[in-house]
């Protein structure tokens, strides 16, 4: 039964109809959560004992950084799915996710720079965390422009999938850079193993903002994948019915 469900969902047509059904619920749900968390974080949490008010950009910086890495992993999973099972939907997802990933990485870099000025006293330093995140951003841009440079979509999908898998090595490097080398960037406040080193009154809105931002970015991915499907399957008869 599960196999049948996956097979059905993997068809671009079913995917598109299901997405259209659930899209607005995901969107409003995450929008409300994000707005509540941001207002909570900006106005109803105390100042930080070292950084004062400037730490509040964490409610944008951390969700964006988290998503920039998660989206890349999602691309890597899609690539593996496409390469092994040749699921067309997976190929559409890779190229649908790439621009959204580039966008979140850009937000992470910019918000980090803005945060750096009042706290570190600089907006850019070539430490391991910042540099590896910049590499991630350039990788996203490279993957997008590579895919665009092909006229044969199928060839582009295959090449892209292989490159995404190779580039996935960068994700653990970004994650562990603050532990492996000395960096200006501080180490992680929230880990799976230890108690968070961020006070609960600041942590709850942070978790809310991550969940809300995650949902909003998923919505962007859904829209972008919808566009990819309609674009790539435009000659199929069901697309004409759908539009």
């Amino acid at each position, binding site marked *: 039964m599960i196999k049948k469900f996956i097979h059905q969902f993997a068809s671009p047509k079913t995917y598109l109809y299901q997405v259209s059904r659930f899209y607005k619920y995901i969107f409003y749900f995450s929008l409300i959560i994000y707005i509540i968390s941001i207002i909570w974080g900006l106005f109803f949490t105390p100042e930080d004992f070292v*950084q004062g008010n400037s730490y509040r950009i964490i409610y944008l910086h951390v969700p964006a950084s988290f998503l920039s890495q998660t989206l890349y992993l999602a691309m890597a999973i899609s690539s593996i799915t496409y390469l092994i099972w040749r699921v067309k939907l997976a190929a559409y997802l890779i190229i649908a996710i790439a621009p959204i990933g580039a966008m979140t990485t850009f937000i992470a870099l910019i918000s980090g720079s803005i945060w750096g000025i009042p*706290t570190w*006293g600089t907006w850019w330093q070539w*430490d*391991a965390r910042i540099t590896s995140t910049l590499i991630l951003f350039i990788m996203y841009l490279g993957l997008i422009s590579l895919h665009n440079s092909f006229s044969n979509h199928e060839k582009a999908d295959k090449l892209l999938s*292989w490159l995404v*898998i190779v580039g996935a090595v960068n994700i653990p490097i970004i994650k562990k850079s603050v532990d492996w080398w000395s960096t200006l960037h*501080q180490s992680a406040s929230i880990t799976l193993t230890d108690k968070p080193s961020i*006070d609960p009154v600041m942590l709850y809105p942070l978790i809310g903002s991550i969940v809300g931002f995650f949902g909003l970015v998923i919505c962007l991915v859904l829209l972008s994948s919808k566009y990819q499907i309609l674009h790539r399957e435009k000659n199929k008869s069901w697309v004409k019915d759908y539009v």
Partner: protein
Amino acid sequence: MNPIRKKRIYSILFVLLFSVSGISLILYSLNSNLDYFFTPTELKDRNIPADKRIKVGGMVLSGSVERISSSIFFVITDYENSIKVEYEGIVPDLFKEDSGVVVLGNLRDKILYAEEVLAKHDENYMPPNIEINDDN
């Protein structure tokens, strides 16, 4: 699983193994060159030429900060070794005693003549009115 898919899985694993080991070798050989700063202990046994600019990181030793007109003098420590710093200019707001700092400058006669002083904060966030309990 059909043999074609099995072959594809193996080739993906091969590519992953290949790229992971390649990148690991590169990172391993670069090793300390990827560090953003030296600690005073790392500098102790090294002979750094006076014209080479280096970054030194650590904590500002408490009670060591001294301001004389527009210059500021302080000591960076990693609680094992320490280095004296002389700097002329404005330090970031987060610069204070017992807190992290990264200094770029030239080391001459065991004194670091700084060109740039950056503050480094840690991963702890909490409201100011809470007592810091040292349970770790």
